[in-house]
């Protein structure tokens, strides 16, 4: 799963120039990233670079963690033991991906507690995609195929992002992610080849998840003020629109192959561009979801906070047990 870096609309964009006290260091830094060198935790870096990364990596981590909720919703109702084992393994992976990413963010000087607090208080963002409900089993197929498919499209270039710990986390994530997309497509394939009702269920899921999935790549380039800076610093390696187009181009034939229809009447192959043209995206909806409007967003945060609070006795017990063991070992 992935989140593109989101900012509140009224938030000022990152200042492209670092503190004036370090022009030489800044020049050296810029030269290093321009030469595709990796930046490591103890290297000097401009404040804005650090802040952008903390925001992007922590949002990415939050997305993995919140992303467990819509799919976890179907674990007990998976249609077979095989599907259940697979979904369980996938949700477990998402939790792991969140942990890799929190660790990468911590190397920049933020703490796990600060990040979790920012998520629970609503200050931190996570991918808008998880604020949609999972209504039917086909939604689990659509999420694996489309949401994880979009995530892979985003994350593959991030394996070469300029910040070493983030890039290494992405290598692990990408390696594990491929099964997520294939199991989702397999679910869709089975439903599309099933009874009329099953096929309608698959089509309905595609209808509801298509637009949110292509919105996952974030606002259009002309409306994405930080993209140029992030690309210059090699934090991002491709723009939102480039990645969105790539995703559409590979996904449309996959839908056709199983007899499903992409819910976009303007979708048309453009032979000149060698790409699909697609219809206008409803960005008002996107920003409403970013702001956390809607019942599902509230449900997600309530579920997160509840899990954290319900787990308190476990954290307390672990601390008490460790203290007791320390006393015992000291006595020996």
């Amino acid at each position, binding site marked *: 799963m992935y989140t593109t870096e989101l900012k509140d609309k009224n938030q000022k964009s990152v200042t492209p120039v670092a503190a004036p006290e370090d022009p030489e260091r800044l020049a050296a830094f810029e030269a290093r990233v321009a030469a595709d*060198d*990796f*930046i*490591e935790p*103890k*290297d000097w870096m401009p404040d804005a670079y650090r802040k952008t990364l903390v925001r992007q990596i922590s949002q990415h981590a939050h997305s993995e963690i919140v992303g467990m909720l819509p799919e976890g919703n179907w674990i007990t109702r998976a249609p077979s033991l*095989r599907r259940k*084992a*697979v979904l369980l*393994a996938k949700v477990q*992976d998402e939790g792991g991906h969140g942990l890799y990413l929190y660790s990468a963010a911590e190397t920049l000087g933020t703490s796990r507690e600060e990040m979790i607090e920012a998520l629970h208080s609503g200050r931190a963002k996570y991918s808008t995609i998880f604020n949609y409900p999972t209504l039917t089993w086909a939604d689990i197929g659509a999420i694996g*195929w489309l949401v994880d*498919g979009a995530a892979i499209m985003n994350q593959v270039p991030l394996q070469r992002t300029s910040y*070493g710990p983030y*890039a*290494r986390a992405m290598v692990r994530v990408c390696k*594990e992610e*491929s*099964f997520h*997309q*294939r*199991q989702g*497509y*397999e679910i869709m*394939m089975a439903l599309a080849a099933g009874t009329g009702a099953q096929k309608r269920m698959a089509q309905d899921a595609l209808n509801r998840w298509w637009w949110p999935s292509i919105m996952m790549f974030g606002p259009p380039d002309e409306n994405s003020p930080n993209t140029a800076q992030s690309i210059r610093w090699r934090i991002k390696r491709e723009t939102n629109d480039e990645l969105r187009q790539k995703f559409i181009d*590979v996904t449309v*034939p*996959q839908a056709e*192959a*199983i007899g499903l229809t992409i819910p976009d009447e303007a979708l048309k192959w453009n032979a000149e561009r060698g790409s699909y043209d697609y219809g206008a995206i409803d960005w008002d909806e996107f920003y409403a979801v970013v702001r956390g409007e809607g019942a599902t967003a509230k449900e997600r945060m309530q579920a997160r906070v509840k899990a954290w609070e319900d787990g308190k006795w476990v954290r307390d017990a672990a601390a008490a047990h460790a203290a007791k063991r320390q006393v015992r070992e000291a006595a020996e």
Partner: protein
Amino acid sequence: MNKVWPLWEVFIRAKNGLSHRHAGSVHAADAKMALEAARDTYTRRMEGVSLWIVPSAAIVASDPGDAAELFEPAADKVYRHPTFYVIPDNVKNI
């Protein structure tokens, strides 16, 4: 004065972008001297750009005798691998 110097584990980052990898260990009286000794012992031929020194006593290692119970449960979960899912040849990029 007959105190045995503690053991330190040495990790080297070959170049930026790669993680630190274990290279070996050194004996030294303190962390700073361990770093100097590691530099002299393990990086005489441009082996790396960064060193981590960790007190050997601080490393918690699993017991090889527990390997089966720790790692075997993953063996029958082939569905964690992408090749478990059969996708027709005409479907590309997945």
